[in-house]
């Protein structure tokens, strides 16, 4: 409601808006802190060999399930303890960031893009396009996902790219369904009808008129799904179809460590916390960014 009253008053020059938004974002300490956390994770992932205290593949059976440093039997050089093969958990979390961030980001990005395009096309063009896309979505959704993934992985063999493909296969239908539903509603709204009456092209209407208005639920769902993707990768590991050893991924670490949860909780808990921290940070930061940049959220 205050929108109409304040909108007219927002500044004139593009650059200052950007600067002010940036200032707002930085001013939002929680969001800014979260963005820093995300950046730190990315930094750790990129410079893992320089940052990590040990070699991620270096096994030492005498350190099998060694507890974290502050517990009896721990050592400060192995801060978070060791896994079942005596590998340093902190090191593997740092290296695991590479795989998990890559898988999470790649899957969500690709899946969301495909989903948005397909969903817009289905919802806006309707007719046979909608028919075909909706049926494909139905088939994929009706097909139990883990079974599909197992089949796919069995067909294509294990490997990082294949994991991503298997995950994208499932993930794209969700933004697609959401976008289609929203588009169906939005396309009937008057401003879209007006644009159509003015002779705007379908592409223009879809991308300029409809998309911006339905993006925010999609983004919210996507950021939260990134956590889901990292966990799904863990499920594949649970079934023995995850990344190949000795590569560390957070999902695989949690999955492998679950067997020891009664005896050595740290093996699966620390990678679990890493997942949580990253997902939390991505979420808060993205919400902060949206609040700062999306005029609809200005207050």
């Amino acid at each position, binding site marked *: 409601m205050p929108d109409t009253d304040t909108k007219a008053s927002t500044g004139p020059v593009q650059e200052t808006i950007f600067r002010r938004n940036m200032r707002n974002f930085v001013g939002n300490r929680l969001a800014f802190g979260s963005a820093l956390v995300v950046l730190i994770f990315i930094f750790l992932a990129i410079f893992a060999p320089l940052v990590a205290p040990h070699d991620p593949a270096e096994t030492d059976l005498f350190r099998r399930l060694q507890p974290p440093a502050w517990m009896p039997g721990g050592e400060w050089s192995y801060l978070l303890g060791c896994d079942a093969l005596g590998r340093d958990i902190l090191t593997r979390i740092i290296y695991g960031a590479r795989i998990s961030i890559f898988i999470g980001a790649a899957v969500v990005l690709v899946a969301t893009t495909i989903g948005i395009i397909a969903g817009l096309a289905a919802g806006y063009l309707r007719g046979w396009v909608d028919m075909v896309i909706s049926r494909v979505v139905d088939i994929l959704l009706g097909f139990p996902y883990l*079974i599909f993934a197992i089949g796919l992985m069995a067909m294509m063999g294990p490997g990082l790219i294949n994991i991503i493909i298997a995950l994208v296969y499932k993930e794209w239908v969700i933004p697609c369904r959401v976008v289609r539903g929203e588009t169906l509603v939005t396309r009937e709204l008057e401003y879209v009808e007006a644009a159509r009456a003015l002779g705007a092209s379908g592409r223009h209407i879809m991308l300029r008129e409809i998309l911006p208005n339905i993006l925010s639920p999609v983004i919210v769902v996507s950021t939260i799904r990134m956590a889901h993707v990292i966990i799904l990768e863990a499920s594949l590991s649970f079934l023995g179809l995850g990344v190949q050893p000795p590569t560390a991924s957070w999902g695989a670490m949690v999955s492998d460590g679950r067997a020891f949860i009664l005896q050595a909780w740290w093996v699966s808990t620390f990678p679990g916390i890493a997942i949580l921290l990253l997902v939390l940070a991505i979420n808060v930061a993205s919400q902060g960014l949206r609040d700062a940049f999306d005029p609809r959220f200005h207050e």
Partner: protein
Amino acid sequence: MSLARFVERLLQLIPVLLGVSVIVFAMITLTPGDPVQIMIGDQIVTPEQEAAMRRDLGLDRPIHERFFAFLGNAVQGDFGQSFYHRRPVIDVIKERLPATIELSLVALIIALVTAIPLGVLAAIKRNSFLDRLATVGSLLGVSLPGFWFGILLIMLFAVHLQILPVSGRIGYASEIEPITHLLLIDTLLRGRVDAFFDALSHIIMPAITLGLPMTAILMRVTRTSMLEVMRQDYITFAEAKGLSRQKVLFRHALKNALIPTVSVAAIETGSLLGGNMIVETVFGWPGLGRLVVESIFVRNYPLVQAAVLFYAVTYVMLNFFADILYTILNPRVKL
């Protein structure tokens, strides 16, 4: 919903089921791994014995012949024999499917009854402590792997507090003549309140574990769409009418805010159904998911084919209900 609409919807099942059949069959065909070799395991057999087993399982026939035989028989409700159970797969599935459906439904209900109020509350009290807590909680919900969270629950409630059983669906002492095959309902229909609570105590941990990620996602969706809706003119107008706070929130806002929640819930129920294998394993839940995954690993083709079809039908039916709900919530969209 008109009858014509209903029939049309049923007809839509056909391409879906056909598509699913083709995919599952193609997958089986293209995936290496020989059921006979796996079944023989660590034994010595003569080539004749091996050929006989292959013949018994119907694997000596060419692929296209097997596919059409499968389709033809499936139409008549015959899905063949499970390689391992040596019984019609339809029987095996019928025994396991109710447990999976019951678990999924309870998880869905738990997710809905916690996610919607929490999402609404978080939206109304936006940026409050409660909102932040709900946000962190929901992210925790999606970030925790089910197998990990499930074992934690077991440790707490079954081992330390000893108030809930570790696994299973109902105690051995409770014997319930099945009606719907859903124990929570059957126990009540039979008037066995003790058995009902027994079944409830078994299902509660797996259902929470299974429903947790869904709760988190639905809560986020509800919160966002509630915020979106609360900015709408019709909410201001409703307030201008002098309606009570409850009426504004629940009659005007929530009804519209639930539209995306319903469509996401319908999709997520699909993954709930297909993804509960892990929860079933952790809690020893006698459902179909675990059985199907094991069947894939041993290439028990008839069971995998039939189970996938059953999943697809269940999923389509669920979506059908979601669609009905959708039209109730949103009269603008005609099915």
